[in-house]
């Protein structure tokens, strides 16, 4: 039994990415939260997913035929909230409450009270496993919607991911797609200096996944990489990204995993993001 799928939203991904970046900067600066670098890193991935790839219906967030999106790197939750608001799942005005007293827009993404959030995360290494269960249930029911989980590179240190990677390949979950935001910087230092992941693509490939690699800021390349599986394998898109992408003084900087842009830094960052093409 195949459930009817809603169409993609068919939005302009460039415009969406632009809006996500500005929202994330304002949200993290107003609320005083961390992770602006992580949000900017995935802004283009989020934009392409929601504008062009995922089949969703903002009027029916629980549409049974929808694609399921999980942000496993929950610390970039502001990017999910911004995306959902821009796509009509909730009012954009709500974003101003992010990370503040009494808000349900937590620093790490939470589903409670937020239509369109499939899974609350924040502890790393959870999203892919839950997505695997969603994909397995769909496969067993003969449904063809996709389950997409977006992970960080540092998150791949978590052993639980590799349990799910083994399992998903064994069960040939072709509708499961993992995206790794490969900006090569984790919490305290570059990935290569922390726990090296390379040869990263080979690891996924040897675990039985179809591996695709793309520039995570090139919308055409991202959309192409997110095409459905070509084989009976789950797909991983290793997206080469830049932490802090879009703000010159944040790009490639470990500092902006935690630092909040305030005062002159906020003004400068906002100017740069507003002037992006």
């Amino acid at each position, binding site marked *: 039994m195949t459930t009817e799928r809603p169409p993609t939203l068919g939005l302009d991904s460039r415009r969406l990415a632009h809006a996500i970046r500005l929202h994330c900067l304002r949200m993290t600066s107003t609320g005083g939260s961390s992770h602006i670098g992580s949000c900017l890193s995935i802004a283009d991935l989020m934009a392409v997913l929601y504008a062009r790839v995922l089949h969703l219906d903002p009027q029916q967030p629980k549409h049974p035929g929808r694609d399921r999106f999980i942000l496993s790197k929950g610390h970039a939750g502001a990017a999910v909230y911004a995306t959902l608001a821009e796509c009509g799942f909730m009012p954009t005005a709500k974003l101003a409450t992010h990370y503040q007293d009494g808000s349900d827009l937590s620093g790490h993404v939470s*589903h409670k009270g937020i239509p369109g959030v*499939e*899974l*609350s*995360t*924040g*502890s790393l*290494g*959870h999203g*892919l*496993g*839950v*997505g*695997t*269960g*969603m*994909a*397995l*249930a*769909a496969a*067993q*029911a003969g449904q063809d919607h996709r*389950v997409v989980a977006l992970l960080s590179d540092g998150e791949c240190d978590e*052993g*639980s991911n590799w*349990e*799910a990677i*083994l*399992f998903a390949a064994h069960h040939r979950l072709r509708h499961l797609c993992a995206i790794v935001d490969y900006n090569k910087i984790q919490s305290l230092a570059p990935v290569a200096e922390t726990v090296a992941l390379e040869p990263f693509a080979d690891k996924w490939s040897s675990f039985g996944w179809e591996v695709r690699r793309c520039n995570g800021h090139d919308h055409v390349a991202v959309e192409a990489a997110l095409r459905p599986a070509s084989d009976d394998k789950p797909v991983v898109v290793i997206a080469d990204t830049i932490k802090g992408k879009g703000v010159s003084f944040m790009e490639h900087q470990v500092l902006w995993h935690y630092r909040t842009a305030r005062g002159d830094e906020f003004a400068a960052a906002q100017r740069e993001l507003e002037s992006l093409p």
Partner: protein
Amino acid sequence: MRDTFIARLLQHAEQDPRITLITGDLGFKVFDEFRARRPGQFLNAGVAEQNMTALATGMALEGRVAFTYSIANFSTLRCLEQIRNDACYHGANVKVVSVGGGFSYGALGISHHATEDLAILRSLPDITVFSPGDLWEAAEATSACINTPGTCYLRLDKSAGKPTRRDGEVFEPGRIRTVRAGTDVCIVVTGGILEEAQAAADLLALDGVSVRILSVHTLRPLDSRTLVEAARACKAILTLEEHSLHGGLGGAVAEALMDAGFMPPRCKRLGMAGAFSSIVGSQSYLRKRYGLDAVAVAATVRSLLEGRPCAG
């Protein structure tokens, strides 16, 4: 209890396609019939309890009632965060089953002694905790897991008390069962160690001591009303569990009585004092060793009633 659980689960699975049983690569031979009759509802997740619990959550969020199964601490502590963040927080129909409560696998060593699970699991929000005492309670708690929305924990024991069901009795989840009436002392017990409370009550009856036994098959939510009634009606109250004294049944009972503003004049908690048992042995041996068997329970009751300090 394990076979009772699987038999009851299979009955439900044949009627309810939502039910999915996921094992963490344990249960040699015991799932053969289930798998043969409901192959699409059985899954071996491999030796990967974190993923087992996460994928059970994913399946539950898609409409399944997903049971995860392993022994001792593997289905609970190994994947505690998946139970907390994934299953409980999302109100997912994940039913965590551990076979081997307490010293069920006593000879296998501390890795297989499940002696903190109740304290840890009962502290989680949005979870229902079942710890049945006899085979009937085990079967009924299995059904209750299916009928209770959200995440549940089912602790199964190798041992089981003598049958306690009265004719026509209906199992009520969340309601403590009075399995023996009495007025001198109330023994509050959870799990298969109910059998030791029953044997202790038989011993004490020889001395004319009237023992009430409460079987707490549902530890969360806890039926405070029945507890407080019993504590008021009896001269002394004793809790008995094959579990650490830190945060288990005894702690839960003390919390309930304190919240009710009632401090029983004579009370005692029996359980593991909090140390690991590097000593191994059968379940009955270890109970004896740690003062949790019928003889020790009876002795503790006598001391309580006589106002003498209790051992342990």
